[in-house]
């Protein structure tokens, strides 16, 4: 905490909230092997104090792990196995396409706040944190951060990212999967307005067996558009234009389509074991972190 740039942390996370986060830890539904010894038990046998199993002794085994008591009783050599404690890879993918810089507060800021909170929890638990900002590919990254003292780097990274370009989850997923072979928790913060479709992007990520969390962030203006008249709607990302004459029927149709689109993402995710979470920027982000993520088991 002491090393954090006060201004940066104030901007995204307030201290009281960070205190609450101190109590939390990220939980993965899957247990992964980390690169370094961490604070988590993995399925790999290691040298922690946590007994796991026995096995027959074979030559070359470390004699320190022989169970002499069993040898005294049975006259056979058994080796005690212990669980390995390892660190957890936590990756946060933030959509920084232009569409995220929308709304008041913008979806981008909301995503950064969520990312900051998750990052803080991860660093507090000595998890290995990687932050990626993507639009039509990975744009910015901060990888391998571990330990709370590096929180300031995270904040610096989150503060400096700029929102620009079009969103392309497919390219991003592909890049990420190649670059990031280690299993771990992957949290995607995006509006998922993917003109090329979101499915391919997810498919690349699912291939790596990550513990995936998809958070769809929309602004209230997108959920309930407040438009009137004959308009030329211009896409902020690609300057694509849609000429519409706003009518009750059109608004109703838009709502239906939005709902169907979100539902399609949810169904896609649910079927593939991906946790999906929909939120609007008018929902306080701490509620998302403290309540929704907890309910979904990401945070404990």
């Amino acid at each position, binding site marked *: 905490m002491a090393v954090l740039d006060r201004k940066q942390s104030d901007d995204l996370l307030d201290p009281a909230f960070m205190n609450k986060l101190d109590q939390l830890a990220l939980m993965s539904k899957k247990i992964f092997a980390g690169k370094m010894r961490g604070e988590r038990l993995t399925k790999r046998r290691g040298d922690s104090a946590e007994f796991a199993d026995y096995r027959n002794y074979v030559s070359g085994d470390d004699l320190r792990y022989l169970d002499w008591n069993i040898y005294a009783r049975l006259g056979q050599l058994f080796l005690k196995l212990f669980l390995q404690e390892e660190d957890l890879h936590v990756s946060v993918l933030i959509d920084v396409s232009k*569409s*995220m810089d*929308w*709304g008041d507060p913008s*979806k981008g800021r909301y995503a950064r706040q969520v990312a900051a909170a998750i990052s803080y929890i991860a660093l507090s638990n000595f998890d290995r944190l990687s932050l990626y900002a993507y639009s039509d590919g990975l744009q910015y990254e901060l990888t391998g951060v571990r330990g709370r003292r590096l929180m300031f780097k995270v904040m610096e990274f989150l503060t400096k990212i700029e929102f620009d370009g079009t969103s392309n989850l497919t390219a991003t997923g592909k890049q990420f999967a190649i670059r990031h072979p280690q299993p771990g928790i992957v949290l995607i913060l995006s*509006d998922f*307005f*993917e*003109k090329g479709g979101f499915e391919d992007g997810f498919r690349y990520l699912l291939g790596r067996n990550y513990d995936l969390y998809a958070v769809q962030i929309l*602004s209230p203006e*997108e959920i309930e*558009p407040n*438009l*009137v*008249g*004959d*308009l*030329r*709607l*211009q*896409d*902020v*990302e690609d300057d*694509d*234009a*849609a*000429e*519409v*004459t*706003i*009518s*009750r*029927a*059109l*608004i109703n*149709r*838009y709502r*239906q*389509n*939005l709902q169907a*689109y979100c539902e399609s993402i949810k169904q896609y995710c649910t079927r593939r074991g991906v946790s999906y979470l929909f939120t609007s920027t008018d929902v306080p982000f701490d509620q998302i972190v403290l309540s929704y993520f907890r309910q979904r088991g990401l945070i404990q």
Partner: protein
Amino acid sequence: MNFLNPASIALAAGLTIPPLVALYFLKLKRSVRLVPSTLLWKKSVEDLQVNSPFQRLRKSLLLLLQLLVLILAAIALGKPMFETADAYESTVLLLIDQSASMGVVEEAGQTRLEIAKEQAKLQVDSLSDDARAMVIAFCDRAIVVSSFDTDKQSLKRKIDSIEQTQSTSSLSEAFSLAEAYAQNLIIGGEQPGSDIAPVSAAPPATVFLFTDGKIEDADKVALEQFDVTKMRVTNVGLRDDNIGILAMAARRNYEHPERLEVTAIVRNFGSKPVTVDAVLYIDGRNVDIQTIILDPTPASDATRTSADPELGHVKLAAFDDIVFGGGGVIEVVLRVDDALSADDRAWAVIDPPRRARVLLVTEDNLFLENVLQTLAVDYSTMTGDQYESASENVITTDQRSAFDVVMFDRHTTDRLPRGNYLFWGAVPKIEGVLAGETVDGEIIFDWDETHPILRHVAVETIDPIRWIDLTLPRDAVSIMEGRRLPVMSYLTRDGSQFLISAFSLIGEDELGRRFRNGDWVASADFVVLVQNMVQYLSSNIATQSKRGVSPGEPVTLPIPEGVETVEITGPDGVVHAIPAARYQTIHFARTRQVGTYTIRPGVAGSDVFTVNLFSETESDVAPAKTLTLGASNVNAQAGAVPINKPAWTYFLVALLVMLLLEWIVYNQRVFV
């Protein structure tokens, strides 16, 4: 549905609709809004277009509504009309009755003529713009109020100018006029030089007749050009409560000429019994009053048309023994408030009592002198020589004969100032009249027994032995004829009347001996004949009142010689100045008002004449349900004329509804 002004629809639609459509074709200038993604918007727009088959229609719903508004406005400008009447005709004839019965004031306070004019104007309004209409007002005569015209305002002004008359009504002249004008219309309407027979090209004129059905000659109308089935008769009026004077006369007592007897036939045409006071005025003085109780007119037509005083609804008002020695105007007034006032008063003019002055020019004729003594006449006698030598002032007064009747017994003369002359066995020396040889043994072969002179005379007893062979002009009216010779004839020349008898009462034989020319001269028939002759010739001083004329009937009035202008004052006080130089009589036809007319300067005894309605048809004000025109019956349309009602208001309402709808649609689109 038809349009009075179809051209304006095309004009209005042509001026407004293309610009509106053009406005819609112009690219809509949309305001640009940035959105995070157009992904869902595009999909939504596509969905709407795919899902709604009426999407295009929805898109252009505003245009459609605005087009509808413009079309409705254009149609309203075209003056659409609901056709409740028949199809429009290009040629329309409006005949408006202005006779006396049209003056009945109906419940609404309007006279029938005013109602008829209103209806006629409504009819004019509902004509199409290119239709030609002609207006004819008719009473006893027909007047073309407006010849064929397409200007509706002008037609309506002219309809307004039709005035009420107190005349009887006659349709024949109106139709003659209309047919004449209709033919002129064709001839005038053709291209110059074209050779199209006018009759075959006659336009199908629709005749609108506005009347109460009281038309005297309706059944005598000969319709040649106009189709009766196309005729629309509008029946104006409802009232039938009328009491009218159908005839009136004043008569002096023969023996006591200062005593008058005035009679008037009064009839109740209404359906309720009435008690009415009949008041007699002489020169404006109230002289006598009588109360008459009249039964209602029976419903059956047979008795309805009868004017028999025995029936309860017809009564005779008789004022006896009215002492009035002078001359003047006698007026009978019914004190009643009924539908028609023109028939509540009747006038008659009676001259002062005076005996006819008769001059007998004879050498010696006891028969005639004896007869004249018995008659109520003042007579004097002259010989032929005395007559010829008498001074002018004895024979003439005011350039007329000083005597009412001058009787020449076997005396032929040319001294004949204007007057009334009776020749026995002699002839007046006027052109065309010649006396030939004496004839014996003739008999009276034929006579006009209806002639007043032969009233109560047994002609077969007249047996003159000898008479003279008369040669008379063609216009002489034969009263008695022999087998080949005229016996007694009547002739008028230059205001004089001549009765010429071929026989005299006393004959002379070849030896100069006088003999009675037939036995009949000693009979009563002779006395009656002479009295008839004197009365007939001196009828202008008859003891009974003068008949007067019907409204509108022209009257011939004698005027003093040398008068330049005659002023005739009508009952309404209007003075008509009639130039009269070089004429001895004038004809006056502006007698549309009932009442007395005074002529200044006038000939004594002819300086006042009266106009009375005396028309049963006009007095029977109950409107006729059917009208017999010629040989056809036409049903009268009661009440309002079936005009084509304007429909543009409905289009205007529809237009407003469309505007409202457009406003709602616009708001729904703009404010979601």
